[in-house]
């Protein structure tokens, strides 16, 4: 354990000295902006599940079906609220039970729209569509239209889950491989370290710990800056972040160890990193993609963060993600140990 801490201290000192953390934070800001606005092109019909609460004219429903395949009818406002809160639907339309009677007596009743703003890729186009549809029905449905958002999530917190997940991926697939390549191929200091009483597993653990600490510090910083430290279940969120970091760091380390040249490491880890990032970001927007991406650790990291942060899920509600991440941690540690030992022969 002492050797791991000595190596960890060295890594922290070295990263602060060469300024890679500052570069990393700058990259993080750029990526977060890109994620906020970029991938909306992937939005497709039928990917949002909406809840409709209370009676509504069938023509209106038919029109909704042209955009949304997946419409659920809730029996009560509580049920609809719960579906949104737990992330099982991204939009709910609350219609007053006495809508038609009130229209008949000349009132202009209110239709409420509850949106899950943590899915920014959907929300803008969905709301616009519903507004336009209601406009078409303004003669038979003269209603007022209000929009409320889930919980107290502010505009800056909307992409918080993506921001957290992507920063972890950046550390695991860009910063960590670069650090290992530096030790392995550029400064060649790995061979010197392995001549001391430091073992291969201690070296790997020190790197994993360095990446985990960096991710934790970075995540906490993001949460504090976004005023979202107590937004979700912090203990579940930290568990997911720690497991997810170790897991994706393990994959980043594996790529660095098996690659023969630094350039191969950089390119390979960047490709794998981008694929995993995309799988995490896009999986919830398509059922087929979600099934494919289920095997990737990034999917469980992204979903675990979203559930614990926005839907306040407990350990029991994210256990599948935690177990999947735990499995990936074991696989990646074992693969790394074999890879580093194979270097000897």
């Amino acid at each position, binding site marked *: 354990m002492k050797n791991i801490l*000595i190596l960890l201290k060295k890594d922290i000192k070295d990263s602060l000295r060469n300024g890679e953390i500052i570069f990393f934070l700058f990259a993080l800001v750029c990526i977060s902006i890109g994620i906020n606005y970029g991938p909306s092109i992937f939005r497709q019909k039928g990917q949002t599940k909406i809840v409709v609460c209370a009676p509504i004219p069938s023509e209106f429903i038919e029109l909704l079906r042209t955009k949304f395949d997946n419409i659920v009818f809730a029996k009560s406002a509580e049920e609809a609220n719960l579906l949104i809160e737990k992330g099982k639907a991204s939009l709910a339309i609350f219609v007053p039970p006495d809508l038609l009677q009130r229209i008949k007596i000349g009132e202009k009743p209110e239709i409420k729209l509850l949106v899950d703003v943590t899915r920014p890729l959907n929300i803008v186009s969905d709301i616009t569509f519903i507004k336009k549809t209601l406009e078409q029905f303004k003669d038979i449905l003269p209603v007022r239209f209000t929009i409320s958002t889930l919980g107290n999530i502010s505009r800056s917190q909307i992409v918080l889950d993506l921001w957290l997940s992507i920063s972890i991926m950046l550390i695991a697939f860009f910063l960590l491989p670069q650090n290992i390549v530096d030790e392995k191929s550029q400064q060649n200091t790995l061979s*010197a370290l392995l001549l001391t009483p430091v073992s291969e597993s201690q070296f790997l653990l020190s790197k994993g710990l360095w990446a985990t600490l960096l991710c934790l510090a970075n995540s906490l910083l993001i949460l504090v800056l976004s005023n979202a430290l107590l937004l979700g279940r912090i203990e579940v969120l930290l568990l997911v972040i720690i497991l997810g970091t170790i897991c994706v760091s393990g994959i980043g380390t594996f790529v660095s160890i098996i690659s023969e040249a630094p350039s191969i490491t950089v390119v390979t880890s960047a490709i794998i990193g981008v694929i995993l990032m995309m799988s995490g970001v896009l999986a919830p927007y398509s059922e087929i993609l979600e099934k494919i991406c289920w095997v990737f650790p990034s999917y469980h990291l992204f979903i675990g963060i979203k559930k614990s942060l926005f839907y306040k899920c407990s350990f029991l509600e994210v256990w599948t993600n935690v177990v999947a991440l735990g499995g990936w941690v074991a696989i990646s540690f074992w693969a790394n140990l074999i890879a580093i030992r194979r270097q000897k022969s």
Partner: protein
Amino acid sequence: MIEVQNLTKTFGKLKAVDDISFTVQEGEIFGFLGRNGAGKTVTIKMLTTQMLPTSGKVRIDGYDPITESLKVKKIVGVMPEIQNLYVRMTASENLSLFAKLYRVSQNRVRELLKMFQLEEWANKLVKTFSLGMKQRLLFARALLACPKILFLDEPTNALDPQAADFVREMIKEINRQGITIFLTTHYIEEAEMLSHRVAIIEKGKIVACDTVERLKKDTVGENYIKITYKNLEETKIPSSEISRLSEIIKGKEVSALEIEKPTLRDAFISLTGKDIK
């Protein structure tokens, strides 16, 4: 101190080290001489736990580098051919890091910095160091844990004469303190100057292993007669063939006749068929 039996290392079809056997006695400087690519570094790596052999047996002070790697690591110091230092750290930080890993006191760091004349540079970043200074720092690092056996892989490679002399003097000094030294080099004169015994490795095989004097005696005889002609051409004949001298120089203008002692280079050429460079 070091026992090697039938050690072999293959990479695919290439036999980098081919069934070599030798022993190194406690307190001696053992020169491992060969051309670039002869198998010197691969051998060192197998002896120092860095690489697994394909077959064969190695004992370092009685320990097996494969199954008892930690025990071997504690008694050996290695100065590698490549300068693998943390260049963004200072000399002092480099040594301190390794001192902590070996559980050695910081006094040892100061002692080594003084011994290798790096005190003034202790707090300077290694990336600003000259090749010679880096080599001295590597040497100091190899000695941190007070090893019983020191492996030096091409310690004077690419150094200027002054820096190389410093390293050679340090090798002698360290050996005087009782440390066994395994020295690989492709500088024949260096091996001849420093080694008590020398093994010559060629294409992965050891072609000779003995004291320098015996190698010279067994391969090229005792002395040469060097004939220099007026047109500056030179010929060497073994002293045992002195009876043929008049016949060899007949009809030629000779400017000088000298008796020369054979060198390790002569032995190397005789054993491998060509010069080392």
